[in-house]
């Protein structure tokens, strides 16, 4: 029986019930009874068929209980009850499916982003083929408004891409030659040609979907407990109903017991919350791997961060250009031209900055000479240029005036590396380079603290000076520097031994052992290319710490939601049992209450889908405003 048939049968049975009511008021008793029996049979048959199919598979189903109860009701001549129960059961199941779909809508929204077609350039001809037919090495063309069908590097063109499907970040990112693009992302504007590197089920997007699907199935402890409970609960209700019959000889009460035995709300109370929670996370760029992780995360009180790549961007950038008697852009251009061939990461950073500012590097450096560990010398545009540290300047006999020295050491104290540049034997400027703290880090850490994190610690392999500076800027509780990967593991173990519940956030490569040791391991999974996707408990798809803060708040909300649901479901069962024993609840009303409780549990979980962790602070703001306007009186 498919969904369409169920709808048809349910509405037919509803119509017959309506006719029966009219006949009742018209005083046509016999016609009423016949209509009711017809309604019972029409709605009861599919239930009975399902029950039979389950019996053949040696499964004990809810449908079986309902079928027995309905046959019993017909037997004792309670036609109103039998018709109402079969209708309510079908109608309830329909509503359940519809609302349950809602709790899964976040994931469905993601799946719907999956690309279907690809424009491929083969043998000089452009053809449109199904995504599944694209092969590795194909040259794929994507235009404005189209979806990227595969993972791979851009070989021609440039575009701004909406990568929400992968990162949860909807602000378009601009990409050009050699940048990696991912299946499922959308070309907002532009034209690109890419070479297919990963296709079909191997793309980052397909793997994310698969991981989220598996996460939603992974059962939490609460969930497992509830299922075990339901397994005992259902058969024991059957035995209880037999006992009830033996003692009371009351068939009505016995049948009612059978109907309310279905532990629907109880069984779904935990999973619906978790599914909605994980779906919410996935839409916000956080992959939470299962209900267990969700429950664990909510209990975390200590967070350990790696520095490079986690709290900082992990990629040095030019933070300031200070020039003496020369235009800043000219200084940057000349230095970049000299550094163009340099393999040193600071040199490459300067070149990258120049390119970012769209400065055209037109001159070729002459007689470039690398002074290992200190910098380089070169002739650019007819001028003798030196770029490097103090030692280089001194060895070249270039004087550093007190004002310049003062500026340089000020920059260094702020966590920068100062690159001195001299032109023609005179200091022409200083370019500061630093691995900057992520712009969202401070706010994200504050939010974590607000939501209940008691301790935040940084472990880093970097030097004490830089580490302390980052620690101070972010207000961390403690900072441990110059650590080896095994030291990090030891530190996490020590925290765990002291009774803390520890989450470790790292970039997933050298931090992998510590991530595995912590109660909850978080990895930065930019683009989902790392093995970290598989090993960590939580993956931040866009490498953004505010996503972690959201996940933490979300986990607490999810666990709360689950508790509410469980409490409500258990409460309903207790009330129903009492009602039955007192003779207040009968077949139809028992089924009605039961179905209503299932729906309420699902509706409560749906609230989680729209959950945004910022709401709390917004509300605070509005409360403050209210106070202000009230104050002047």
């Amino acid at each position, binding site marked *: 029986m498919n969904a369409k048939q169920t709808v048809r049968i349910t509405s037919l049975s509803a119509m017959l019930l309506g006719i029966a009511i009219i006949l009742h008021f018209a005083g046509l008793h016999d016609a009423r009874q016949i209509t009711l029996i017809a309604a019972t049979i029409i709605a009861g048959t599919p239930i009975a*068929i399902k029950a039979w199919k389950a019996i053949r598979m040696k499964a004990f189903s809810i449908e079986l209980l309902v079928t027995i109860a309905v046959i019993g009701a017909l037997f004792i001549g309670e036609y109103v009850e039998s018709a109402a129960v079969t209708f309510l059961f079908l109608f309830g199941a329909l509503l359940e499916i519809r609302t349950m779909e809602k709790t899964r809508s976040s*994931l469905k929204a993601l799946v719907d982003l999956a690309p279907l077609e690809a424009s491929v350039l083969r043998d000089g001809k452009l053809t449109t083929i199904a995504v599944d037919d694209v092969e590795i090495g194909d040259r794929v063309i994507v235009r404005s408004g189209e979806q990227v069908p595969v993972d791979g590097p851009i070989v021609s063109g440039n575009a701004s891409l909406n990568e929400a499907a992968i990162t949860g970040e909807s602000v378009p990112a601009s990409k050009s030659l050699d940048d990696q693009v991912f299946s499922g992302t959308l070309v907002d504007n532009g034209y690109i040609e890419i070479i297919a590197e990963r296709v079909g*089920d191997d793309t980052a997007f397909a793997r994310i979907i698969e991981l989220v699907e598996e996460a939603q*199935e992974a059962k939490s402890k609460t969930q497992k407990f509830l*299922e075990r409970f339901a397994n005992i609960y259902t058969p024991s209700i059957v035995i209880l109903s037999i006992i009830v019959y033996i003692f009371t000889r009351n068939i009505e009460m016995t049948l009612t017991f059978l109907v309310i035995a279905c532990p629907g709300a109880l069984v779904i109370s935990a*999973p619906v919350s978790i599914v909605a929670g994980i779906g919410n996370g996935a839409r916000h760029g956080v992959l939470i791997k299962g209900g267990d992780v969700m429950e664990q995360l909510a209990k975390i009180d200590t967070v350990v961060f790696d520095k490079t790549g986690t709290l900082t961007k992990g990629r040095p950038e030019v933070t300031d250009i200070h020039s003496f008697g020369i235009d800043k852009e000219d200084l940057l251009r000349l230095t970049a031209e000299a550094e163009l061939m340099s393999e040193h990461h600071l040199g490459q950073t300067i070149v990258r900055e120049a390119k970012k500012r769209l400065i055209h590097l037109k001159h070729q450096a002459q007689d470039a000479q690398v002074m290992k560990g200190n910098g380089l010398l070169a002739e650019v545009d007819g001028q003798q240029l030196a770029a490097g540290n103090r030692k280089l300047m001194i060895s070249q006999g270039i004087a550093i005036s007190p004002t310049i020295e003062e500026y340089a050491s000020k920059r260094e104290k702020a966590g920068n590396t100062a690159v001195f540049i001299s032109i023609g034997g005179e200091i022409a400027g200083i370019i500061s380079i630093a691995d900057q703290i992520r712009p969202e880090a401070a706010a994200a850490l504050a939010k974590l603290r607000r939501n209940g994190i008691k301790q935040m610690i940084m472990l880093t392999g970097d030097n004490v000076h830089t580490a302390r500076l980052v620690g101070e800027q972010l207000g961390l509780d403690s900072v441990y520097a110059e650590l080896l990967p095994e030291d990090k593991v030891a530190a996490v173990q020590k925290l765990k031994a002291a009774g803390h519940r520890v989450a470790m956030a790292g970039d997933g490569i050298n931090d992998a052992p510590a991530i595995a040791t912590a109660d909850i391991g978080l990895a930065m999974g930019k683009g989902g290319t790392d093995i970290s996707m598989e090993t960590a408990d939580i993956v931040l798809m866009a490498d953004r710490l505010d996503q972690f803060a959201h996940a933490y708040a979300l986990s607490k909300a999810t666990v709360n939601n689950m508790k509410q649901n469980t409490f409500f479901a258990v409460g309903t069962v207790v009330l129903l049992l009492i009602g039955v024993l007192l003779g207040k609840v009968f077949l139809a009303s028992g089924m009605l209450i039961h179905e209503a409780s299932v729906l309420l549990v699902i509706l409560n979980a749906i609230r989680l889908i729209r959950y945004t962790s910022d709401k709390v602070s917004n509300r605070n703001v509005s409360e403050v405003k209210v106070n202000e306007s009230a104050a002047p009186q």
Partner: protein
Amino acid sequence: MKKAVFLMEPFSCPSCVKKIEGALSRAKGVQQVKVLFHSSKVRVEFDESVVEANELQELIVKLGYPVLNQKVS
């Protein structure tokens, strides 16, 4: 060894999962069955020399669960 993914109509009760998993895992040539309740999918790993994906699909349909789509890889 092949892997088939069947897309189902949305499941309404967790007991369906046990039914399908039980019946499929008893079938010949089936190595592993996983019913994804929330994403309405059935994943089966099977030996293609013993059983065909269509036979597995038939088995699921016989249990009373319509299959919307089949993907074998």
